[in-house]
Structure formats: C-alpha cells, structure tokens
C-alpha cells in the first residue's frame, strides 16, 4: 500500500503538477509572513491565526484539485489518510514526503515530521525574544490541512508542536482527529 502510494505521488509530481521556481515561492511566502508581522505589530498569536486562516481558505479549494489529480476515493481509516497526506499530498504540492510518526495508542492522532521545509529555506526568526517562542512560521500548512480535512468530513485539530526554526530538534505537525462527520458525507457514498 505504502509503496503504491509513493508511486502515485511520484507519477503525479512528474506528469501533472505545475512547477514553480522554489525561491520565488519561498520568498513570496516569506514576504507575506514578514508583512503580517508588521501589520499585527509583532503580535505573533495573531499572525499564527491569520496564517492559519489563509491556509484554511487554500485548503478548502485545494482538496478538489487533489482529488481530481489523484483519482483517489475516501480513505478507510486515519492510518491510510496519514499515508496519503504524506506520500501524495505533500509530494505533489511541495515535493516533500514528511514522515508519519508518533501515533497515539488509539490511532486518533499522528505527527508529520518535516525533514525539510521549503517554506523556511533562508529563514531566521527575528531576535526579539518572543518570536522563538510564539511564532509558528509555517502555520499556513496547518490551515491547509485543516481545510482539506474539513471538506472530506474529517473534523481535525492541526497544529505545529515543534519547529527547527525555533531551535527544536525537528519540525512536526500534529494532526488529531476529533470526529468523522458522518452526517455530512455526501449521499450516495459507501
């Protein structure tokens, strides 16, 4: 299963995904975050929220493209979802494959460990004593995931728990399934 997904992700990345110069992408995102920091007067909580909301708006649209390109149907369980997100989702949109790790015993929550983060090349957080503790620089990713999950009726909490930019060992996004919104699954599905 896992190898098959990797193959799908690789194929789509090669044949269907539009590519863009990665520096243009990194610099664009960087200037957005820097501008938000300025606009919110370095209130990093607000910046995190704003990035999350921007991501959410992207996610609720992106999921359709994802489904269309991958031709996948609904996952049977969260373990499949995690594999699909890492091996196909991240692969076709960012060309990275985060490691799925740190499952809780009830398989309701997992971590995505990003060995590399294209958003954060060249970035050092401002040395103002609080950015290191408060700002989740790549928080837009959490929003995107949240938005995508929402559209396929998975109510999830998505948040960063570690970021190498802050001096942590790894960069980890935590996904916690709250509930599958069964009532909202479109009619006609299994």
């Amino acid at each position, binding site marked *: 299963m896992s190898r098959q997904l990797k193959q799908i992700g690789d194929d789509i990345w090669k044949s269907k995904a539009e590519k863009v110069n990665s520096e243009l992408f990194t610099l664009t995102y960087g200037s957005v975050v820097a501008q938000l920091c300025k606009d919110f007067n370095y209130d990093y909580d607000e910046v995190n929220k704003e990035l999350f909301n921007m991501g959410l708006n992207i996610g609720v649209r992106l999921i*359709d*493209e994802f489904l*269309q390109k991958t031709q996948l*149907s609904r996952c049977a369980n969260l373990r499949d979802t995690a594999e699909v997100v890492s091996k196909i989702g991240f692969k076709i949109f960012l060309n990275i494959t985060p490691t799925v790790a740190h499952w809780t015993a009830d398989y309701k929550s997992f971590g995505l460990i990003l060995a590399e983060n294209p958003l954060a090349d060249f970035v050092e957080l401002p040395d103002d004593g609080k950015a290191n503790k408060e700002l989740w620089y790549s928080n837009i990713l959490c929003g995107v995931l949240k938005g995508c999950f929402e559209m396929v009726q998975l109510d999830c909490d998505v948040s960063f728990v570690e970021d190498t930019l802050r001096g942590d060992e790894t960069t980890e996004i935590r996904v916690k399934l709250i509930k599958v919104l069964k009532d909202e699954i*479109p*009619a*006609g599905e299994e």
Partner: protein
Amino acid sequence: MAVYSLYIISKSGSLLYQKDFNVVNSPISKHNTNDYLVIASTLHGVHAIASKLTPKEAMGNYERSRLPSNSNRYGLQCIRTDRFNICVYQSTTGLKIILITSKDLSDLSVLQLQSKLYEYYTDFVLKNPFYRLEMPIRLKLFDDKVQSVVTSHNV
C-alpha cells in the same frame, strides 16, 4: 453524439452552473432560470433518495460506479430516456457534475468528459481568488473552457 446540457451542483444542492449547448435537433427545450433551479434541486433530491433505496448488493452493477474518482456509488447514476440520458458524477467533496447527453454517447466518454469538467472546475473556478465557494459560477474563462471541451464532443 452530442451533449445537450450541463449542470454543476454544490454539496448543499445549490445550482452553481448551468449551460445548454447549441445542438441541432436538441430534445432539450429552453427554460427560464427558475426552471433550471427546480431541475437542479430535483436531481439533487432524487439522487439522495436513490442512495437510500439502492440495495448494497446492487452497488457493483453499474460500471461507472466502480471508478474510484466517482464517489457516486449508491445514488442516482443515470436516467435513460428514449431521447436522452442524464448522467450524474459526484466527487468525494460532494460536487455533482450532471450531463444531459444523446443516447449514443458511451458511458466511458461521458465519464471522461465529466472528469475533464471537474479538472476545469478545480483550475478555473477554485483557483480564482475572487470566486467564493457555493456561489454561482460566472467566470468567462471557465465558460470558454467548458464550451470548447463540450463542442469537441458534439459531432
């Protein structure tokens, strides 16, 4: 072979997009906007009712429902009349793409066309930053794309 009409219906059942195509001898007569809304919500409702009526064993009977991208397994798949077919495709997010076609258009080409239309929706509607979800689609670029891909089927 011809495609007479296209309906795109949102997850919640509102009509996002409707287009009748210019085909000689089309059995579909012109309606007013209100009629289109009625047709769309009827199809949406009938689809939901059908999904409750379909026995589980019958699910695999219909070839199209086996294709993984079409999440429409139990719902209304197709209405075949003497003069046209109505074919329903549904994405996992609940978007319905409904085509009214001539009898001689094969299931496979209808599905390919629906899949292509879904692609155009993701590209030219969802990626437009000013389009708001669940709102009627009034976008020239999307319109042109739809027109050209459908016209290529109308021979």
